[in-house]
């Protein structure tokens, strides 16, 4: 034990009494005390300020992405364009030139636009998705053919960014992504009430896209879902079984010591090393497909296993020995004792631990980069084998893109990710509060 060193102050000269010496230093010592206290307060405030700053920064950047600009365009579903033979043949309808309808509608809005360049700028106001939208509508209600409708069509990303005020109109024309005449049109549309911001459902219904206004996180969300499902299905049973074995059955010998040391070390191995393992073992050795949620789930379950085991063991040790002794005393076998009594009592703690582990796995991206889940994938995955990406990796991919509209979407995706993490951690806390028993 360290001996506490005596308090500050030089050795007392003989001609002054202790009280004067102490009093002389008191002012300085109390000032030092106040300063030290202030340092502590500053440190913790800095830490908390970072939390607030990050959330404010991300929410501030991300919330506009939940609204999307639409332009009201008069669309004439011209039978001559869509269905020249009038047979309503689905094949003809599928191949019809819907973009022409959109172009005609835009010309109707601004009849003054002339010349190839100007017209191209005019057509650029609406997203290329508008044609697909018309196609979907016609397929749904073929009666539309021949009719005329005022439709809200998705605006292009540049118009969206302009309407949200993120393009500096004072800049020189060559330095902004949107031309002078386009700005003028947008102003006219706004004045006529033909521009509106609607809830951005596309963000939640589409997969990735090169066009910011059509890019969504559904593919990434489904990828995350499948990956986490695999992770949970593998790591929870194995983790719980390991915890039970080590806590209840394992003899104390070198072998179990080795297992324990291993688990503790695995908990601290950098996540990227697990990615290397996944690449070398699952993809190159076992030949599993790249980018598949199955492989991602395998890698992440190896990563979360230590977390679940450590939490599970803590939950098991908190069950008092008297319960075990009572069960054994009534003639239960050891397995019955664990299965009927100890495990049900430890289950809330184990589940809490594994939910926290899952939340961590949800936010993990580095090992998934190694196993090819960084590909640009448009389709929403439908099984464990489909190529897919996960939400954090989608964030990483989008953060690399230069368009302002993608910055917004990246922040929105981060908000969704954080919402899921808060949800999971909240669930864990709730579970702990509700079911935790103090013995």
């Amino acid at each position: 034990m360290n001996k506490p060193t005596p308090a500050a102050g030089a050795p007392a000269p003989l001609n002054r009494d202790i009280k004067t010496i102490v009093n002389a230093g008191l002012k300085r010592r109390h000032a030092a005390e106040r300063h030290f206290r202030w340092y502590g307060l500053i440190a913790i405030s800095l830490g908390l300020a970072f939390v607030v700053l990050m959330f404010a920064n991300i929410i501030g950047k991300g919330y506009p992405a939940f609204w999307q600009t639409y332009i009201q365009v008069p669309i004439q579903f011209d039978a001559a364009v869509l269905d020249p033979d009038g047979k309503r043949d689905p094949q003809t309808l599928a191949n019809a030139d819907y973009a022409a309808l959109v172009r005609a509608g835009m010309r109707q809005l601004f009849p003054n636009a002339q010349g190839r360049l100007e017209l191209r700028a005019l057509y650029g106001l609406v997203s290329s998705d508008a044609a697909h939208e018309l196609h979907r509508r016609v397929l749904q209600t073929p009666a539309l053919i021949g009719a005329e409708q005022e439709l809200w069509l998705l605006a292009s990303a540049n118009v969206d960014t302009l309407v949200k005020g993120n393009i500096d109109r004072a800049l020189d024309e060559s330095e902004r992504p949107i031309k002078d005449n386009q700005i003028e049109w947008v102003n006219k549309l706004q004045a006529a009430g033909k521009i509106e911001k609607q809830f951005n459902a596309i963000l939640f219904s589409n997969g990735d896209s090169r066009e910011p206004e059509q890019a969504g996180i559904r593919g990434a969300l489904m990828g995350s879902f499948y990956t986490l499902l695999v992770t949970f299905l593998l790591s929870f049973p194995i983790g719980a079984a390991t915890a039970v074995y080590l806590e209840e059955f394992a003899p104390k010998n070198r072998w179990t010591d080795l297992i324990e040391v291993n688990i503790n070390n695995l908990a601290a191995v950098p996540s990227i090393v697990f990615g290397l393992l996944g690449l070398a073992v699952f993809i190159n050795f076992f030949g599993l497909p790249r980018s598949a949620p199955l492989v991602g789930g395998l890698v992440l379950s190896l990563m979360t296993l230590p977390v679940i085991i450590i939490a599970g063991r803590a939950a098991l040790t908190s069950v008092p020995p008297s319960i075990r002794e009572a069960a054994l005393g009534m003639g239960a076998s050891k397995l019955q004792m664990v299965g009927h009594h100890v495990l049900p009592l430890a289950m809330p703690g184990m589940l809490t631990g594994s939910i926290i582990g899952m939340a961590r796995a949800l936010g993990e991206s580095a090992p998934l980069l190694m196993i090819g889940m960084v590909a640009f994938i448009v389709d929403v995955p439908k099984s464990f084998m489909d190529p897919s990406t996960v939400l954090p990796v989608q964030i990483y991919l989008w953060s690399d893109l230069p368009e302002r509209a993608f910055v917004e979407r990246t922040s929105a995706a981060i908000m969704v990710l954080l919402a899921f993490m808060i949800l999971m951690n909240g669930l864990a806390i709730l579970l702990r509060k509700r079911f935790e028993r103090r013995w």
Partner: protein
Amino acid sequence: MQSFLLLALILLSIGGYTLGRKRAVAVAGGHIRNLHSLPSFYGSYAALWCGLPALIVFAVWATLQPGIIIDLVVAGLPPELRDLPPDRLNLLVNDLKNLVSGNIVSSTPDPAMLAAADRYRNLQVIGNASLWVVVMTLAIAGVAYAWRAISPTLRARNRVERVVDLFLIASSTVAIFTTVGIVLSVVFESILFFRQVPITEFLFGLQWSPQTALRADQVGSSGAFGSVPLFAGTLLISGIAMVVAVPIGLMSALFLSEYATPKFRAVAKPALEILAGIPTVVYGFFAALTVAPLIREIGAAMGLHVASESALAAGLVMGIMIIPFVSSLSDDVINAVPQSMRDGSYALGATKSETIQRVLLPAALPGIVGSILLAVSRAIGETMIVVMAAGLSANLTANPLEAVTTVTVQIVTLLTGDQEFDSPKTLAAFALGLMLFVVTLILNIIALHVVRKYREQYE
């Protein structure tokens, strides 16, 4: 198809359970006291006999089938296709698989390929059908065996428990297999790498430019694999992170455990730990899009040249991420110092800060050092922040305003392109991975040892 088989197997096992249970009650003449075990154990016994062998066969079969089918199909190809070099053959097999699953193929299929695809489909159908037959037969045979074996003297409980025991033991070895897997995969690839690049060059070389040539006569075709700049960069960024995290984390921990009221502590501690729960990719985004431009602007205002991917930005944000690690680990350590030591100091007239500086910190020092080491190992292995906010070019510099690269950044960039697996470029990533694994392992072992030693001291 295969998931249906799995479902059928599960249903059969449930059936086996009820059958076994009923059988046990029947052989006992309705009095279960005549049985060695409870009837449910006989049920489980039958279910295990039904499901387990069939499941094992199913797993082995399902892993082997695709490879065998490919081999058979390749063997049936016309000789001029079969004798292609391995890489071309691989391409061919990929085309074949795409053809079978109905995807677009890279070239127009020729008749031989179409025939092979037909053969492939046939074999697949045959394989799946025989899998069904074999698995179902095994499952039913298992139930039949259990049905015959069940008698009042059968020690069903012991047998079932033995199987469960084996499952538990097998589960606990997964951790060992993981470690072995990590070590084998990185060591194996690293050995391949060190055959092409001498280990001394890798460890002590000052040049890192892993571009490999497309042609042998290209300029700079050799590539340079000296890892010193990478480790220097890693140390620089981790160092900046620790400069941020250690004072803030430590002072926060001291304030929370010594000064704060319980109410403040109950709010501030979890709030601070939010920082530990935020995914690293979010920090990376924050670093790249908010902190780095900010530092650049501040630097420009002061007349300094700051690289847009400066080490300072990455290090600063990494430091923020590490604050909660340092604070919660040192919080534990500080709380483990016995209250009697504090009381002794107060009794001598020391103020709180004097007690902290002269009693608490010296007593807790080993534990704090341990927690800092853990935080360092965390910083070294951190990937996303540096991938998004640090640079790619390997500069050997100690200037935090310049761009440096780190070990993890290089692993990611080397492995996320398309290249064949045995080029020195990809192998270098594994060698870096090995170094990373070894360094963090050593740091962790030392840190855990120190912390444990320290805890024992006061228990």
